[in-house]
């Protein structure tokens, strides 16, 4: 099966609409088909990977936990817009410490999240075969 580069653009906060959860489901499906998958978090999408989410009070599934599984699925390129973080008064320290184990480096744990400028994101997007926006 041929491999394509897929980038998922996540632009919406979790829970208020179903976009974020739907995106994650599609990401996992693409990964099951062993495609080259990366994620970008821009606008309110950055809230999807903010640390300390607790959904007990709204009776919804806390799917922020699922982002920790992405490393198992060989998804280890999570790009976050620096500008979007800044606009919202957030920094890298507010995000979940998402990691993956590098098979080629004796399973060393490495960070999956990378903060990038919008200009860098633009470049990353133009390198993709498919960009899907949620």
């Amino acid at each position, binding site marked *: 099966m041929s491999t394509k580069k897929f980038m998922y653009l996540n*632009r919406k906060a979790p829970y208020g609409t179903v976009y974020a959860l739907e995106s994650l489901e599609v990401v996992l499906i693409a990964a099951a088909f062993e495609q080259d998958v990366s994620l970008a978090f*821009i*606008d309110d999408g950055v809230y999807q990977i903010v640390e300390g989410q607790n959904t007990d009070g709204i009776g919804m599934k806390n799917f922020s936990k699922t982002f920790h599984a992405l490393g198992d699925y060989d998804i280890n390129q999570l790009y976050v817009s620096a500008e979007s973080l800044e606009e919202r008064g957030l920094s890298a320290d507010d995000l979940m410490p998402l990691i993956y184990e590098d098979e080629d480096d004796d399973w060393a744990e490495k960070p999956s999240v990378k903060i990038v400028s919008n200009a860098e994101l633009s470049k990353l997007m*133009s390198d*993709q075969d498919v*960009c899907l*926006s949620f």
Partner: protein
Amino acid sequence: MLHTVNKSVFERNSLQSCLNTIDDSSVILLIEDGVISAAKNTKSSLLADLAAEGRVFALQGDVEARGISSKVADNIKLVDYEGFVDLVVEHGTAVSWV
């Protein structure tokens, strides 16, 4: 790249987000409620620079449906569905800003 935007600039930030990450060779096609952003004499001038470079298109059917044909900025080009397909072919990877 081809970027399609289907939300009005007055309702969502889709157009602004698109502009935040667009590169110098990309073009924008406004579709559905996105064509509202093509109107001239509004308080939003987000598209002015790109339109001046001839890099903004709007889907004619959606413009006409909303009765704003005469209000579309002069340097925004109207395309039909065939023109839409041509843009996809010419510009490769498409991103839909929803």
